[in-house]
């Protein structure tokens, strides 16, 4: 075989299993992949499809419960699975670089960033002294960190989220690897940061002629970095195709279904907002502050203004989407409106009555009109309670639904309403998938017959196909029950699909507010334009 015809990485018939050898759960089944030098292969799939396990299996870093039971991985024609462990440590970091999803956890918090890069260079390239220091600074400069000499001496907590991921990339590239594995490197980042990191990765890959295995669940991101795309489903490879061909016409039915479920900015169903509905909720000059306490007596020395002078209104039967990046104060505002957090100023008028001035007891009675659905459906339900009790909790607290039997009947009805089975009431939350759990949370909110539901990123932890189902459910409930939604999200595609009006939030303030058509297609504010430009668009060439 000619040396030049050997691919950089070849995965051949890889099989990974979990659990007892007698009855294993097969996580990856007969997987074949190749990556050439200078090529980016993007592995896409929904959660649980085995994307990350594939990456871990290639570097032989699988969790203890998982076993490789077949196939092989060849790097430049050498089988990695037959190498002794000691030789494998020379491959990791030197030949294969790895970038994780959460830079926060992947960086060592008690070691200077510069030392973490130097460690790799020292070990794999044998650099010492002044040369090592220059190379570390160069590495940080290459990934776009300003003042690299000073920043090399800092610790990870002194870095912002985007800078941490840049530092992570610098560490992964420090050993000058031939292959870079990036496991959802931008999922934890905001869209504007995501665009920067993707540009950086792509540029470094081109400059060094590395091969890259890029793992993502986001088709937009895949379009921006891919040369070829591979789709995984349930541990099996569904389809591999060059980027252009794949996005023009995916061959497999599953790939097409994933495309169809994608919320797109352009797509907007005929979803008219009710005409001349009266205002249900009016928020005026809302301020929420967090005190900074110092000293022995925990005196308040300063305040952080998380929500600053926000005013908005929601009409009956209307959906107002609040978009913004993480840390912009949108979640804080949602909780403040429900008075789950103390308000520093302003008014929240619900049907003309100011909630901010109500006593605890009076507020408790109003709570049934305003409900909330959280992002993390796993944390949103007490793991020690049955689903039926969880859904009924609000009815008990608000003294609704009559007798115990009547409440149980209502719980069954609610579960059916959100697309579950009545029998599910007798199960525990952990027995359900992410999408089903979010349906239970919606049923719990509906149980007290609210008029407004604050949806705090209810779909951002879900796969695209499940997200589409939940969005359909919410729209259906709105039309049937005349609900109003305050929909908090960072996903502009979801906004286009569901909302009537949009408010853009930036650093605790609302910078722009208007109908979806106005804000998304004719943005007035600079920040809105930046946000829209950063959204990865399929079909547009990355710069």
């Amino acid at each position, binding site marked *: 075989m000619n040396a030049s015809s050997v691919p950089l990485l070849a995965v051949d018939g890889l099989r990974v299993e*979990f*659990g*007892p050898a007698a*009855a294993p*759960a097969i*996580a990856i089944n007969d997987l074949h992949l190749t990556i050439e030098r200078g090529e980016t292969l993007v592995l896409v799939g929904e*959660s*649980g*499809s*085995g*994307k*990350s*396990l594939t990456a*871990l299996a290639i570097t032989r870093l699988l*969790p*203890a*419960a*998982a076993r490789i039971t077949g196939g092989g991985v060849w790097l430049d024609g050498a089988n990695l699975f037959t190498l002794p462990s000691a030789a494998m440590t020379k491959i990791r970091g030197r030949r294969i670089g790895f970038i*994780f*999803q*959460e830079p926060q956890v992947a960086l060592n918090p008690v070691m200077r960033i510069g030392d973490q890069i130097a460690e790799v260079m020292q070990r794999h390239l044998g650099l010492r002294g002044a040369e090592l220091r220059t190379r570390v600074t160069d590495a940080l400069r290459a990934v776009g960190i300003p003042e690299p000499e000073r920043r090399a001496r800092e610790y990870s907590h002194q870095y912002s989220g985007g800078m941490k991921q840049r530092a992570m990339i610098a560490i992964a590239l420090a050993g000058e690897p031939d292959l870079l594995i990036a*496991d959802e490197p931008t999922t934890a980042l905001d869209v504007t940061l995501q665009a920067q990191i993707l540009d950086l990765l792509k540029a470094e890959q081109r400059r060094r002629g590395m091969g890259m295995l890029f793992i993502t669940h986001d088709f937009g991101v895949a379009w921006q970095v891919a040369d070829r795309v591979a789709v995984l489903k349930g541990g099996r490879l569904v389809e591999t195709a060059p980027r252009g061909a794949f996005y023009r016409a995916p061959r497999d039915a599953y790939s097409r279904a994933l495309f169809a479920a994608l919320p797109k900015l352009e797509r907007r169903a005929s979803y008219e907002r009710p005409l001349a509905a009266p205002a249900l909720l009016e928020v005026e000059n809302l301020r929420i502050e967090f005190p900074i306490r110092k000293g022995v007596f925990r005196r308040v020395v300063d305040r952080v203004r998380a929500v600053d002078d926000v005013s908005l209104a929601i009409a009956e039967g209307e959906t107002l989407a609040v978009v913004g990046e993480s840390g912009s104060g949108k979640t804080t505002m949602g*909780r403040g409106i*429900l008075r*789950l957090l103390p308000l520093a100023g302003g008014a929240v008028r619900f049907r003309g009555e100011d909630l901010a001035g109500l006593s605890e007891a009076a*507020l*408790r*009675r109003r*709570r*049934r009109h*305003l*409900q*909330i659905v*959280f992002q*993390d459906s796993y*944390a*949103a*339900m*007490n*793991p*020690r*309670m049955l689903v039926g009790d969880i859904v009924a*909790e*609000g009815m008990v*607290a*608000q003294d609704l639904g009559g007798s115990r039997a009547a409440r149980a009947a209502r719980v069954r009805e609610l579960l059916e309403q959100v697309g579950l089975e009545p029998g599910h009431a007798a199960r*525990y939350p*952990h027995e359900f998938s992410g999408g089903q759990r979010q349906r239970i*949370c919606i049923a*719990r909110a509906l149980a*007290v017959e609210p008029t407004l539901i604050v949806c705090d990123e209810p779909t951002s932890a879900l796969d695209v196909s499940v997200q589409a189902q939940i969005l359909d459910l919410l729209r259906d409930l709105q039309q049937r029950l005349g609900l109003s939604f305050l929909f908090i999200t960072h996903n502009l595609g979801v906004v286009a699909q569901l909302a009537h009006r949009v408010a853009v939030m930036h650093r605790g303030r609302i910078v722009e507010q208007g109908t979806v058509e106005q804000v998304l297609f004719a943005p007035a504010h600079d920040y809105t334009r930046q946000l829209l430009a950063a959204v990865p668009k399929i079909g547009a060439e990355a710069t």
Partner: protein
Amino acid sequence: MIQGGLVVLASDACLFVLVASALAYWTIARRHEHLRAPWREVWARPAAAGAAVVLGFFIAIALVDSIHFSTRDEAQDDVVSLLDLALESLRTHPETSYSAPFATHAYSRETVRLPDGRVHREYPRLVSGGAHLVAPTERPADIARRAVLGLALGLASGALALLGAACVERRRHGGLAAACRAIVGGRTRRPWRSLLAVGCAIALLLGLGIALAPWYHVLGTDKVGTDVLYQALKSVRTGILIGSLTTFISLPFALALGVAAGYFRGPVDDAVQYLYTTLSSIPGVLLIAAAALLLDVHMSRHADTFDSLAARADLRLLALCGILGITSWTSLCRLLRAETLKLREVEYVAAAQALGVRSPAIIRRHLLPNVMHIVMITTVLDFSGLVLAEAALTYIDIGVDPSMESWGNMINAARLELAREPAVWWSLVAALVFMFVLVLAANVFADAVRDAFDPRLRRVGAESIATLAQETSHR
């Protein structure tokens, strides 16, 4: 000889309340899957199941020892327990002083007046130890014969237990013989093999005891001639009571204060924190010594209410549990406060607040069930530490009443016994072995409980594989 009826000492009542609450917990746990699953995991561990049998045996001794009757005996005991009645021969046949295990003669020379009036110093025959032997030379053969008899008895009951277990498992394995083979091979779903192995060991020891103890002082006698085996057995109740009652007393403080501090924060949190930092910075021994002194003064002032020796000793034991409990809630309280601080920010608490659920209901329904695993883990972990603490405290004379049998008292006495020549070692060894077995069993059991209940240590079971696969793919 039982003149009066049943006497319920305060500590008896406490012990039975403890057993009743354990039973109540069991009935509740049976109905909730989230409690049943971790306990199933505990029972699936052979070591934990074996340790549970040992613990159960000790608890059974303690319970039998907690059913008291009043007597009008001329002996100094005015209250005797069911265990005393069972060990009648050990209790009522004291020697005059030390004797070694299985001895027929006293350990030290005594002055004996011979029938002809001459005074002679010799090792006199014991009153009850080996008294049935005509000549002391028959002793080895006699012991061997009785031991074989005892072992046979133990083996027979072990075989009976195996048969019983096989009957239970018969249906699953098809036939009695197949069930027996499955049990011996350790292939049953319930950990029968380890249960039976430990049970058999206990049966053998019991058989030996039944065959030998009425005729010999198996573990020797102490300074005043009391049988050491009897003392060690009576000490079981003291140890168990201190280990369990103390945690039971400290629980309400730790739970109420810890959860309240974590949930309400602000001034409540400040007050609770101030309380436990103050309390935990006072040396515990000092507090205990002060409390013991106070109680002594109180009892001597009201001598008429504490007329019986047993009642006084009992009260002192309870006071010790109380003061240990009041000083030892701080560490659990800290853990619970921290966990509650974390939990109250979890979204299901926010959801309950948004639904208008009141604070007491939120604490009861959402916080308490989710911190109970910490309580469970701490309780079993603390048990062995408290048994050891009793020994240490009694050793420095601020523990239980000197008239009450306890391992601490036995070890305390051994301080002088070891200093004499030749040394008396059996009291110390007996106390150490009994205490060691109980504490070891409690520790093994506690480890299994922690592994099963701690969500961070949860093992990879067949059902959690799917979740794990999902988690790794999210990482």
